[in-house]
């Protein structure tokens, strides 16, 4: 009998509608206005790569050990170096990082013995060209240079 009455008075539908009504509270609305409101990504977020430089003298921290290139599953890092005859040490010449093939697994970051290569919290990496996705040493050190438009 109770079941029949529930069926006639659409109890199941009103039960569901009550849930949607409860959730109408404006405090529960989750809208991020993305370009104006910057999302705060986590501290450990693996985003755009960066090659750190020593803030004191502006020299790169990279010792050109090539460990990141070996650790990378996609072999997208190419490191070249040359031997400095005065100090008898290897010095970094070029460093290319193909972000179009990168899957941001963070293995290169783990492999780096001097914390030179780092995946940062920067997540906007879109470019207009494929070539723009291949980052050279300057881009890695200074960050990408997005095209500036006058408005």
């Amino acid at each position, binding site marked *: 009998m109770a079941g029949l009455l529930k*069926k006639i008075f659409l*109890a*199941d*539908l009103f*039960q*569901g509608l*009550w*849930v*949607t009504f409860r*959730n109408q509270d404006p405090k529960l609305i*989750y809208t991020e206005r993305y370009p104006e409101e910057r999302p705060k*990504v*986590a*501290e*450990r*977020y*693996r985003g755009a790569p960066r090659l750190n430089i020593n803030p004191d003298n502006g020299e790169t921290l990279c010792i050109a050990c090539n460990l990141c290139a070996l*650790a*990378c*599953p996609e072999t997208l890092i190419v490191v070249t170096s040359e031997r400095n005859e005065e100090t008898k040490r290897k010095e970094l010449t070029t460093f290319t990082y193909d972000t179009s093939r990168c*899957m*941001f*697994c*963070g*293995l290169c970051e*783990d492999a780096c013995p001097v914390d030179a290569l780092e*995946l940062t919290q920067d997540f906007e990496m879109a470019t207009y060209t494929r070539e723009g996705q291949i980052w050279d040493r300057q881009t890695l050190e200074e960050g990408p240079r997005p095209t500036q438009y006058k408005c």
Partner: protein
Amino acid sequence: MADTTFLDSTELVLNMGPQHPSTHGVLRVILKLDGEKVLGTECIIGYLHRGVEKIAENRTYAQFNPYVDRMDYVAAISNGLGYCLAVEKLLNVEVPARAQAIRVILTELNRIASHLLWLGTHALDIGAITPVFYCLREREEALKIFEKYCGARLTTHAFRIGGLLYETYDGFEQEIIDFCKMFLPHVDEYEELLTNNRIWVGRLKDVGILSGDECKEFGVTGPVLRAAGVKWDLRKAQPYSGYEKYDFEIPTRTNGDTYDRYIVRMEEMRQSVRIMEQAVAAIPEGPIMGKVGKVIKPPVGEAYVSIEAPKGELGYYAVSDGSTQPYRVRVRPPSFVNLQALDRMIRGGLVADVVAVIGTLDIVLGEIDR
């Protein structure tokens, strides 16, 4: 054609997919129809094939780890756990207790996230639009925890062979406890929306029935098997990663229809919360990385490890030839095996039920095609 009248029945072959939104990816189902009735189906897969198993042969053990996240991308952490356990078995490495507990917490959280996405999209397929918003809202909280823990939301690469790379962040335990507290009332809320709803019950009851014996014949695992009344859960049957320490139940139902599978998955989410609460209350102190060298070089041998992923039994079979790269890695994905039961479940049903049955199998095409 001139001789046919409207009384004649002709068989119609209809392609569903690969772009159909209800096939959850790029599955193509060829339906043989007699009016609204389904006479037979054939699944065409392979649209998302990337050759992951072959890639494994050209990568070192550690390098292959991020690729397994990309198979079942909804439950990436479960995939990572399965692979890491398989290589650890090859290496014969003991994982520290602290790492095991954190692994269990994250895997169960991933199970909840996977089931929430399933519930939302399944309800959306059936025609209930509201649950997907609520499900994704709660899933967001779980993904935020993943992001804070390992730096990525979906393809997490959270575990490393031998243990963990990342120590928990400050407030990790509290966030898990808060999530558990927040989440349980929300499960009741989804049930309020769906369980008694007459449209939901009408669309799901007695649709796509698969009995327990048929499940065993096909090798179907996971919630589909448990909804058919078979009490089989690898977390209980062959405990791994310290699951024997936690107290939880295996939810089962008897009918094996789509509605029962829904009930089983809802109950599984509650059980996952139970496991997480127990695990987070007793995270042991200690190291998080086992004794694994910088270069992973397992001895010659082979290992098979299967875990209970959100979708069923997920197996990893790794063969080592003594070098730094695996000789062969074979994946036994749950979705791939479960999909084979589709024809048996839908034959004789209606076209509209095809969508419901594909949804209830909870397939992920990244895992099927690999």
